[in-house]
């Protein structure tokens, strides 16, 4: 009786099993972020352009942030969920200020007075980018306002948040921190 085919079959099965378990480890490794509620891992696509001045007149270019994750957020003062979410965003910015995460917080089609007074009350440390005519927001086509995207270091949109999120909750902070650990 020739045992060779059976042995090779066993070896194949063992190797396959090792490979499978290896994949399982990879999926469960600490560096893989657990996606919190309301964050969608979406079909990746290159980010639309985002070049705007902030409320102090300083230019911002998303293209120049390659190599870093970018938190892109669209908001307006008339949007109720934006008002509820903005303090959480300020807390998150404060907690992650020493990280490499870049924040691009974009006001959609409002003037400086409106943005100044709104943020002055709710999130005075946030520096908003000013999409004065709304055309940058238009190019991103968010589902609605507020809307948040996470753009990877290669400039690819990887995640989208549905509506307003409690960004300063541990679950979200851990998710963002683990994203930053990914290469």
């Amino acid at each position, binding site marked *: 009786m020739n045992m060779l085919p059976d042995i090779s079959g066993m070896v194949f099965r063992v190797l396959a099993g090792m490979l499978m378990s290896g994949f399982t480890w990879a999926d469960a490794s600490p560096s893989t972020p657990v996606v919190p509620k309301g964050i969608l891992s979406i079909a990746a696509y290159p980010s639309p352009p985002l070049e705007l001045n902030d409320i*102090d007149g300083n230019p911002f270019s998303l293209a120049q942030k390659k190599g870093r994750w970018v938190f892109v957020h669209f908001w307006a003062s008339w949007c*109720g969920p934006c008002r509820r979410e903005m303090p959480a965003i300020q807390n998150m910015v404060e907690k992650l200020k020493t990280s490499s995460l870049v924040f691009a917080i974009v006001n959609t089609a409002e003037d400086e007075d409106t943005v100044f007074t709104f943020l*002055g009350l709710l999130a*005075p440390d946030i*520096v908003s980018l000013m999409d004065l005519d709304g055309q940058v*927001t238009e190019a991103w086509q968010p589902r*609605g*306002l507020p809307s948040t995207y996470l753009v990877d270091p290669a400039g690819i949109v990887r995640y989208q948040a549905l509506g307003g999120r409690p960004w300063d909750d541990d679950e979200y902070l851990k998710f963002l921190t683990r994203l930053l650990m990914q290469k």
Partner: protein
Amino acid sequence: MANNNCKYQQKQACFTQQVIIRVLLALAFGLSSFPIGVLYAEDERPPPGFENGQLRLQLFPWSTEQMAAFFEARGFPVLMIEKLSAYCFFTATIKNKRNDVLQLDLADWRFVSQDGELQRIPRSQWPPLWKKMGIPLASQSTFRWMLLPETLHFYPHEKEGGNVVLKKTTAAFSLRARFGLGENTDPVTATVDNLQCADVTEAGKPL
């Protein structure tokens, strides 16, 4: 990341300005919010709507005055506000209570009165009108973001809202809406009766 500092002003003047702004804002804040929260006090009749185990749909009518005040506060041109006064506005909020995707397509919404189907003004009709009227892009953009999208896939438990605009009518009407669930699956239907434009009195006459 500090901003909102008065970079170019004397410290005392800056402080006074900030205090005044904040007091005025605190007074005006309720009026400047998206109207859902301010249209209905808790002791008032709840807005018309529909709810079952699959979705929640609510419709909040805007009066012409509310609409004008809201848009004026955002610097909309008078011409634009006058034009919008001729229409009937509802803010629709939809929550998908299912564990799968619920498909909104406003083409599947019918607003029906005794006299027949009411005309809904789709999103595509506004930009040519605003362009012809020379409306600034910022106002166009804000108006557009306030509209309910023509189509949207609601993810499980997602809630979104936006305005639906109808040709003004004094008649009571119903909404018959269908939401898709994908191929080979019957849509979810929702009916909301006794809807009226906000400027119509109980006697059925426009204010």
